[in-house]
């Protein structure tokens, strides 16, 4: 213990520097959280008011009762034509995300575990799909869908969403697969497994974590899409839920904010639910 500088001696003698008192931080955090929730609270209050009530009272006042909610829901649902749109988005998100993740895993497998020439170039080819902004796809896809008669079809939308959701999972799954022990492959081959059996029975079961994380992200993204739906699938039969919301906002503005906000809440419910239930998987997907 000799030859310490006075500074070091002081540091050793004193207790560790106290961080600002815990409750101070907590209070601060609480204040910020409340601030963040303000718009939500406004929405929550509004959806419980009937149209007349909303118009008559200040926006942040408490609603008089709970009953208008049901009426608001009914009106939003019918006037916004939400039933069909919900169905559409459910289809697109479920099919698109799961197919994309599966195809991405299939593509990532040779990129991570096999050796062949220009392997990296092939990966870049797949990944190039995310590099360009969406604006560059819109017009060509519109023309292409027109020509292929895929415009305003469920099939067309599913294909599109799948394609867009492939590149990112390829990156994630490839990185994850590279970290799996290589010798498992070799052991499986010696055991007599064909390449596809290897992929399906050995590699895939070990990818459950990243695959579900990435599935959630892509599902949410597809559910939230408005742009592609409005360009490539704008008919009432094939609209996505957000597209329907947009249309609703544009045409029924006279319905009153309480109805519109109810519609917005309804449209967001499924993803909200997913987030509440599966928060950890969402966060995991970010660790990429």
């Amino acid at each position: 213990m000799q030859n310490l500088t006075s500074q070091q001696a002081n540091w050793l003698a004193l207790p560790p520097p106290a961080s600002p008192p815990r409750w101070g931080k907590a209070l601060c955090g609480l204040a910020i959280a409340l601030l963040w929730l303000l718009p939500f609270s406004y929405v929550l209050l509004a959806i419980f008011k009937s149209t007349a009530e909303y118009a008559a009272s200040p926006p942040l006042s408490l609603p008089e009762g709970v009953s208008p909610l049901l009426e608001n829901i009914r009106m939003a649902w019918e006037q916004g034509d939400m039933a069909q749109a919900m169905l559409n988005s459910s289809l697109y998100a479920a099919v698109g995300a799961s197919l994309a993740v599966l195809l991405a895993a299939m593509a990532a497998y040779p990129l991570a575990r096999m050796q062949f020439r220009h392997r990296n170039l092939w990966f870049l080819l797949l990944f190039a799909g995310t590099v360009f902004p969406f604006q560059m796809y819109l017009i060509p896809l519109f023309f292409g869908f027109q020509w292929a008669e895929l415009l305003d079809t469920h099939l067309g939308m599913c294909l599109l969403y799948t394609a867009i959701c492939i590149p990112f999972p390829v990156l994630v799954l490839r990185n994850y697969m590279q970290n799996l022990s290589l010798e498992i492959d070799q052991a499986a081959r010696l055991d007599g497994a064909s390449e596809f059996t290897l992929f399906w029975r050995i590699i895939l079961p070990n990818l459950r974590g990243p695959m579900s994380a990435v599935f959630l992200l892509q599902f949410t993204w597809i559910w939230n899409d408005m742009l592609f739906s409005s360009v490539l699938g704008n008919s009432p039969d094939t609209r996505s839920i957000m597209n329907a919301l947009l249309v609703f906002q544009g045409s029924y503005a006279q319905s009153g904010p309480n109805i519109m906000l109810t519609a917005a809440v309804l449209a967001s419910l499924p993803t909200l639910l997913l987030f509440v239930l599966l928060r950890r998987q969402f966060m995991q997907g970010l660790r990429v």
Partner: protein
Amino acid sequence: MAEVCLRDLVKVYEQQVVVRGINLDIPDGAFVVLVGPSGCGKSTTLRMIAGLESISHGQLLIDGKLANELPPQERSVAMVFQSYALYPHMTVQENLAFSLKLAGISAAERQDRIDAAVKTLELAPYLNRKPAELSGGQRQRVAMGRAIVREPKVFLFDEPLSNLDAKLRNQMRVEIKRLQHRLKVTTVYVTHDQVEAMTLADIMVVMKDGAIVQQGSPLDVFRNPANHFVASFIGTPQMNFFHGTLQQEGEHFFFASPALRIPLDRTRFGTALTHGQRVCAGLRPEDILPHWPDETPPAAETFAATITLSEMLGNETLLFAESASGPLIARQLPPRPVADGQTLRFTVRTENLHLFDADSGISLRADQPQRQETNTP
């Protein structure tokens, strides 16, 4: 069960020759150990037999059939990896059953084989656990079980004991040997640990720089190392080497060095000796004996050396000493108290003397076993 033949096996990796023309005939049911320092090509050779590395040139024959182009799936070869490579998402039972299911073996037969392996390796309490819940030794046994149930033609082991602690390693060594004796499957085992090689092998193959340097029974290789490298690699503690020259006096030859002067038996060293040849004398620690004044006079000359360190192992003591010819290690049984700095006189067992040419490292013994045609430097 099958013979394995390696004929002029070469592996070239990115213009570098990694395995240089290996010739090896492995009889059916033999336990062959490939041993050598890291980078000597032993693992690569093993993987070429398995089909996990492509063969650049040469022939691999398994059971008489050319196997070069066969994919690993079709070679009927089972391998135990250094890291065990168990399927992490499957239970022990499923790990064992996997290859059998792929081969389309009936459920009844599958169960029979698994039961037999489980009994042999004492895996019964672990059948429903996943690899992550097992200790290193348990995982190792599952890996071996996975190989056994396949009833392959050849067993391959790639340094399977490296990841285990010393005690477990010794236990598993014995188990592996017992297993192989019972099953009588042709086995190729790779290790860098010469103790494993000595204890396990029927045929020990010493490799260096991608070539076979010597092969034979362990005792053979131990007693008659073909060159300096093998002599230094096999045997713990390492053999002692002393530099010196050959001197001829009439009909007799002597090894002469500052500390030692040893008469040479012509029948052992043949006609290859020339006066003035620079040589390296090799003596194992057990062949250098401290000579106490109260003992009967020794057969050969004694020389002096100063003790620098002694390691007491209980049944014997290793004496580290400094002589006029350089440092040496001697084994002393039974142990007697020795002090650092003490000067003792030592004698040697001349019948176990090895001589190596100082430049080429090749042994000068006349009774060298027929060596493999290799290209040793």
